[in-house]
């Protein structure tokens, strides 16, 4: 049955963008989740809702507006985070953006997109532009993480020591924000506004159940992310349900099983 599905172009495109997003998300995951920044993905997803609404009103390809829009918002969040509580900064910027987005949709003349399609996304209607942008985000994030891995690791666990070691923590922090914004803006089109942050959060949470090493957390997270995304797509299509939702549910079941299994194992030991 799987091979039958592979005949269809839209399935192939869904798999390509799915794997690209899965790899991007899992590479960003430990540096955000383990640094108490998991919610930045959620906040930026809300921002991209406004970015897309604005883009749909102004141009043919809304991503050309929404990507720079979300990046600017990520810089604003970063800027505010240095001056107030990080959670508060994310909450402020995302609420403002969402509010603006809703007004644009209400007042924008000739707005013919459904809000539901924005909120849940659709991986099976991936356009070639979206696919290229998705692959581009993966390549950029891959190079960034590979090149700065040791610096990013030190920043994640001890920001002061990173600063002391001469690492340009502010610059790297802004770069990490910008790439996260790029990934979110692209990902929202396929996975949806409300679910895209799960793609960032799950990989590290799941892989850190298995390993004590930071690098292994990154690697296992990427493997898990790719497997879950591919299976999510294959499960979602025949059932005619959104792929984003299916991926999140598969992740949740796996995490639940791991936690139960660990508890049972610990119970046997004691």
């Amino acid at each position: 049955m799987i091979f039958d599905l592979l005949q269809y172009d839209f399935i192939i495109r869904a798999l390509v963008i799915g794997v690209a997003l899965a790899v991007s998300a899992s590479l960003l995951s430990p540096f955000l989740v383990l640094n108490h920044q998991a919610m930045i993905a959620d906040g930026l997803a809300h921002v991209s809702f406004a970015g897309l609404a604005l883009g749909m009103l102004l141009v043919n390809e809304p991503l050309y507006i929404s990507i720079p829009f979300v990046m600017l918002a990520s810089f604003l969040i970063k800027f505010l985070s240095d001056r107030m509580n990080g959670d508060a900064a994310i909450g402020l910027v995302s609420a403002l953006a969402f509010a603006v987005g809703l007004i644009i949709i209400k007042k924008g003349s000739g707005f013919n997109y459904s809000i539901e399609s924005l909120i849940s996304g659709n991986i099976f209607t991936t356009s070639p532009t979206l696919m290229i942008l998705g692959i581009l985000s993966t390549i950029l994030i891959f190079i960034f993480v590979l090149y700065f891995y040791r610096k990013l690791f030190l920043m994640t666990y001890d920001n002061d020591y990173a600063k002391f070691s001469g690492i340009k923590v502010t610059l790297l922090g802004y770069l990490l924000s910008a790439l996260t914004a790029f990934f979110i803006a692209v990902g929202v089109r396929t996975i949806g506004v409300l679910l895209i942050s799960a793609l960032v959060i799950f990989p590290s949470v799941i892989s850190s159940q298995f390993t004590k090493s930071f690098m292994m957390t990154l690697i296992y997270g990427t493997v898990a992310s790719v497997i879950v995304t591919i299976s999510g797509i294959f499960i979602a299509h025949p059932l005619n349900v959104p792929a984003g939702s299916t991926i999140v549910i598969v992740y949740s079941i796996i995490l639940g099983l791991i936690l139960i299994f660990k508890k049972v194992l610990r119970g046997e030991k004691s």
Partner: protein
Amino acid sequence: MIQYDHVNVNFGNYHALIDISFKINKGDFLHIVGPNGSGKSTLIKTMVGLLKPSSGTIHIDLNTMGYLPQKLETKKQIPMTVKEVIYSGFKKQKLKPSINDELLMKSWLEQMEIPELYDKSMFNLSGGQQQRVYLIRALISNPEILILDEPTSALDPSFREKFHLLLKAMHEEKNMTIIHVTHDLTDVAKDNCHIMYIDQQIKFFGCYKDFNLFEHKEHHHDL
């Protein structure tokens, strides 16, 4: 190699450090003492570049510094191994540590009497063991100067004596400059050492012998 000229640090209206001027030469061993909240850690933070002075100038002429912070990052449940933490102290780091780097890390762990912890999770270590790992991180790049902010606070008493002997050896054999913040001078090496007594301002700066006289005088004032 380190020179402070009229350095002030203010937090709003609060003067944490007032008119700090002193000089540290290569090979000095300096203990910084003072009551709680006297600005010891603030002074260290200006030295390692984590805090900019409100006024005054700091000249630091050094290539490599080792630093053991007072507050250790133990709050986050980050999966990371002892090896990963120590490697983050290297000046040049690669994606995969070289065999020589691995041997160097292992030999330091042996010197700190915790060789079995190499691949262990930082999260499962005791406070004292973590402290030793962070000390190795500070020393692994063979720094010209070692700055320690109350290092013994978390160390187990049995290792404390060994730790002070280690500092003394590094000072004498490698001519390493050491700056050591402490609230307890009992165990530390004192011969040929400088003492700075700080309470927002520098109240005393000189050799240990003169510091004894200074302390006596202070006590008389108190009485």
